């Protein structure tokens, strides 16, 4: 199916065995076309994080198929998954996950270390420029505000020029001003043609034209649940 970046068919994820088994995802199907902005909402414990791990190739489904950019990633080895993550996916986390001992541009450079890339510093500086932090490239994460740290993290997700930006509660640790800034950057990236999947319950996201999916008890449905 050309144009569909994400194609998930009847995916289930079960943790544990027997009586202790937890069905985190049951019969989830999802298609996201290239260039779309998809928001996944739902209460905590509904399986949002598990879905995000599968979408991000950080974990593989227990059953079902996951085709990402035309490749079947549900059968890949750990090293192959690492390659897909490095080439095609940019992650933005709620906790930022910046390395405190490295400066902003060194943090942004990190994903480029795991591929053969030339001029890594220039690429990192360009990405920081895109998120408006050209004047903070040598700052350590502890010298930056929460909003600035998340923008560094977005620059790190951008620097590899990925097919998909996968953001897991990116505004969960930010005040509303910073949240709006971060969402505006994500919206801008989407308008520039990049596919964005956002897992959130931030009401500010309503300002962005998007498809909305709701997770509830491990099941996914399109639209906002009543």
């Amino acid at each position, binding site marked *: 199916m050309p144009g569909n970046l994400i194609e998930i068919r009847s995916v289930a994820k079960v943790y544990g065995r027997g009586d202790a088994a937890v069905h985190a995802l049951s019969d989830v199907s999802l298609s996201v076309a290239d260039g779309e902005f998809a928001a996944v909402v739902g209460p905590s414990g509904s399986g949002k994080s598990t879905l995000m*791990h599968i979408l*991000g190739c*950080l*974990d593989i489904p227990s059953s079902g198929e996951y085709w990402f950019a035309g490749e079947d990633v549900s059968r890949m080895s*750990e*090293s192959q998954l*690492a*390659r897909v*993550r*490095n*080439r095609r996916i940019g*992650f933005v*986390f709620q*906790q930022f*996950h910046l*390395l*405190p*001992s*490295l400066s902003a541009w*060194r943090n942004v450079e*990190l*994903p480029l*270390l*795991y*591929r*053969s890339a030339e001029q890594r510093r220039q690429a990192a500086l360009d990405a920081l420029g895109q998120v408006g932090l050209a004047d903070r490239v040598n700052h350590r994460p502890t010298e930056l505000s929460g909003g600035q740290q998340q923008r560094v993290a977005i620059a*790190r997700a951008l620097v*590899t020029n990925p097919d998909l930006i996968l953001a897991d509660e990116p505004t969960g640790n930010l005040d509303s001003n910073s949240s709006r800034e971060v969402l505006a950057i994500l919206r801008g990236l989407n308008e520039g043609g990049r596919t964005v999947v956002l897992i959130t319950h931030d009401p500010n996201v309503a300002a962005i034209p998007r498809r909305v999916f709701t997770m509830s008890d491990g099941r996914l449905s399109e639209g906002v649940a009543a």
Partner: protein
Amino acid sequence: MSLLRTFQTGLRGLTGHRLRSILTTLGILFGVAAVISTVGIGKASADSVTSRIASLGTNLLTISPGSTFAGGVFGGGGSANTLTMDDVRGLRSKDNAPDIQAVAPVVQTRKSLVSISSNWSTSVQGSTPDWLITNARTVSQGSFFTNADVASHKQSVVLGTTTATNLGVSIGDSVTIGPAAFQVIGILTQSGGLAFQNGDDLAVVPITTAQDELTGGSPNSVQRVLLSATSSGTVGSAYQEADQLLLATHHINTAANADFTITSQSSVLSTASAVTNTLTILLASVAAISLLVGGIGVMNIMLVSVTERTSEIGLRKALGATPGDLLRQFLFEAAILSVLGGLMGVALALVAGALVPRFTSIAVTITPEPVLIAVAVAAAVGLVFGVYPAMRAARLAPIEALRAE
């Protein structure tokens, strides 16, 4: 990820925790320094013992009167006078002792030597020309006295270089020893440093003259007899021949009652080197254990590091690091710590090796082998003890690792 970049990443990981990294290297540092310096001290003492003994000649057998156990009580009734010139003549017989090359009877005393300009107290030995062979010495200037000189009780003296220098004499000068004046006819070639008995500070005169003028006592008795075997392979048979001959000459039936003792330099040498080798191995093992403890320290710190950096590991995995990348990164960190500690240990050992002999009487000989081995072992220790923590890091599931805060 290329090896160079992995190395840089590992290095950055270490500089991020500077104090911890330095403390970890200390274990390896002292382990390596201890190994190198103990082996160095062992080597120095082994060298000095070996050279002291070897300089006496490995073909040498020494016959001393009496034995420590018999004390001469069963023998001639006096422990110091059981060896005679008759024994010497018997040992010289090629028929009875074919494996003995040279026989040098020795009488020895300590005397003051007086020259025109100076006086000097030293050991004066009376012997025969065979003394040169048994002691493995040569004459650098002039000549040694001859058998004819011995027979004619000639008042000639051959000096060691130290003695000659201190007396300020050269060939042809006259030196007064005790009541008599001697003419200097030869200077011995320098023998090198002998700390126990200085081989360059002595005077040698014909044994007959020594008995006349210096030692007194019976002209037939000698204090000890030096024997030289025809080669190092015949030392054993030379020993047997001398033993049988003296037992027969002294009319002693059982070897246990012998009124003389024969010692061979090669047996002393092998005993001494076995002792110093054992000591060196003992010291080096203790030091090696400290190196091992240092390695375990590296493992501990790396394990702490992996646990503490769980979220970093998860992040790196999310960004595309393969298990192999992380395995190499943490192995590199462990290896850098150990090699760095090893090199600093070498530096410390070299400094100690230069300073210790200057301020104490302990000699240290640092050779390249233990240095290379210690550094290689330190690197190996780092890799071996780094493998387990690195595997823990590589195996962490990315989602578990990301969840840790």
